[in-house]
């Protein structure tokens, strides 16, 4: 069984991103970039499937500029066998990413495609589901458990009311939630080995996809500022404030 894992290069989750002064975009100068945390969980899950003997090959794919090869190398250091970079410039919308991934799916014919449920930059939560629709594949989104057996995937999903389990025919899409696994750290020898693993570069034209733009970023702005309030020195004082000043409790 072949597993395709999509990874995205994003601002590190510890960075507090700000809008540029002119409001044209966010300021990403000199900030630390990392593999999207949900994508890291996706890589880990694919590697575990391989270690369990369920998967035979794990292929990592990323859509972006040359710099995203760094995140592909990270994925390979975690255990992916090879990488594919789909070379694009600037921001690529989820629909286009999904079309590019559909192109890769057509070439690679994976049995399972694992993606993060969302990237922590755009917070869109779209790409996996869009790929599912374009490739006519079922999806198990927001997964907290994945079991592959008898030619189907049983995926337990984190939903608003609790947990839901669905059974999917293969090939299928899985998008990861936080509790699916805890990704390992890449060891130094594996980081060195990853540098020698194959990494192919493709263009959107190779995949017959036109990179279109449906959305325009009109402006970005900081959210309404919340100023720090006051410290109270006792539970009595807190209750008094909530009753008589904020008037939020009776």
């Amino acid at each position, binding site marked *: 069984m072949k597993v395709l894992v999509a990874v995205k290069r994003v601002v590190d989750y510890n960075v507090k991103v700000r809008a540029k002064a002119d409001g044209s975009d966010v300021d990403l100068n000199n900030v630390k970039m990392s593999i999207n945390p949900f994508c890291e969980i996706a890589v880990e899950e694919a590697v575990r499937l391989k270690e369990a003997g369920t998967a035979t090959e794990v292929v990592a794919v990323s859509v972006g500029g040359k710099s995203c090869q760094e995140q592909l190398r990270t994925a390979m250091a975690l255990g992916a066998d090879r990488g594919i970079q789909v070379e694009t410039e600037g921001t690529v919308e989820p629909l286009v990413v999904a079309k590019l991934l559909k192109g890769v799916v057509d070439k690679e014919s994976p049995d399972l495609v694992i993606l993060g449920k969302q990237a922590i930059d755009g917070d869109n939560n779209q790409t996996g*589901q869009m790929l599912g*629709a374009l490739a006519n594949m079922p999806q198990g989104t927001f997964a*907290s458990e994945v079991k592959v057996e008898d030619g189907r995937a049983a995926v337990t999903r984190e939903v608003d009311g*609790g947990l839901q389990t669905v059974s999917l025919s293969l090939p299928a899409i899985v998008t990861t939630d936080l509790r699916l696994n805890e990704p390992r750290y890449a060891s130094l020898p594996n980081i060195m080995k990853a540098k020698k693993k194959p990494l192919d570069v493709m263009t959107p034209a190779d995949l017959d996809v036109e990179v279109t733009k*449906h959305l325009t970023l009109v402006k970005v702005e900081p959210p309404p500022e919340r100023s720090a309030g006051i410290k109270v020195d006792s539970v009595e004082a807190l209750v008094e404030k909530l009753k008589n000043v904020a008037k939020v409790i009776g």
Partner: protein
Amino acid sequence: MSTLVVAEHDNSTLGPATLNTVTAAIALGGDVHVLVAGADCAAVASAAQGIQGVSKVLCADNAAYEYQLAENMGLLIAELGANYDNVLSPATTGGKNIMPRVAALLDVAQISDVIAVESGDTFKRPIYAGNVIATVQSADTKKVVTVRATAFDAAPAEGGSAELEAVASAHDAGLSSFVGQELVESDRPELTAAPVVISGGRGMQNGDNFKLLEGIADKLGAAIGASRAAVDAGFVPNDMQVGQTGKIVAPDLYIAVGISGAIQHLAGMKDSKVIVAINKDEDAPIFQVADYGLVADLFEALPALESQL
């Protein structure tokens, strides 16, 4: 201009987030229709007919939609969506699961988690865990949008008189099936709609200690939430998580107990009207957004708070 709102429901009750989504649809102008797709869901369709501002309710009552599997729902909504300028759903896990399939089938972008409708094609939405608000304009003729319920008032649930139309289309993609679910039963208000929320974090130390929040929640009519740290540590189940990737809440009163205040948590609660933080670490970032901060050991403060309410 016409907008189709995809109702959130469990085949017997209309989900409250649907009402907020109708308000967003009304802001776009034109006719607002609501789709209720499920099995034996006539009661939900009937409830939807009462929402003020809705002129028609489409009811697709078919076994294929019983569990609202994304594969089947995507095909149905894309087919119906062809007749509308906009297709909206609440940005719940249900809407997030289904709507991108609809957008892809219609070959348009999706605009996720909108918090304001600026015009017929322009929306505001949070990005980067809510550290930045983006204004985005869509060039697509059709807009597929998920709506952050807490950012819009609920449309009145009663007083409307929408006509009812049955939809015969039965799309069964044959790709997926429902196996089971473990839904958390609670007598407390639903987290995203509760007027008061009290949440515990890593400082609670274990799941048993969440009982300390229950007495207070009962007195205040509050829902109980948690930080990611508390969920990851296994103290409480995932449906309680408030934050960037969990639930977004904006109650009148939010009480954060033993929560340090990572930006990912703040993303899920900083639009609350009044925020209270109880933490023994006076430098915890949660105090930077709290209206009232109490530096105290929660194991002393919580029983005292309960007794004084």
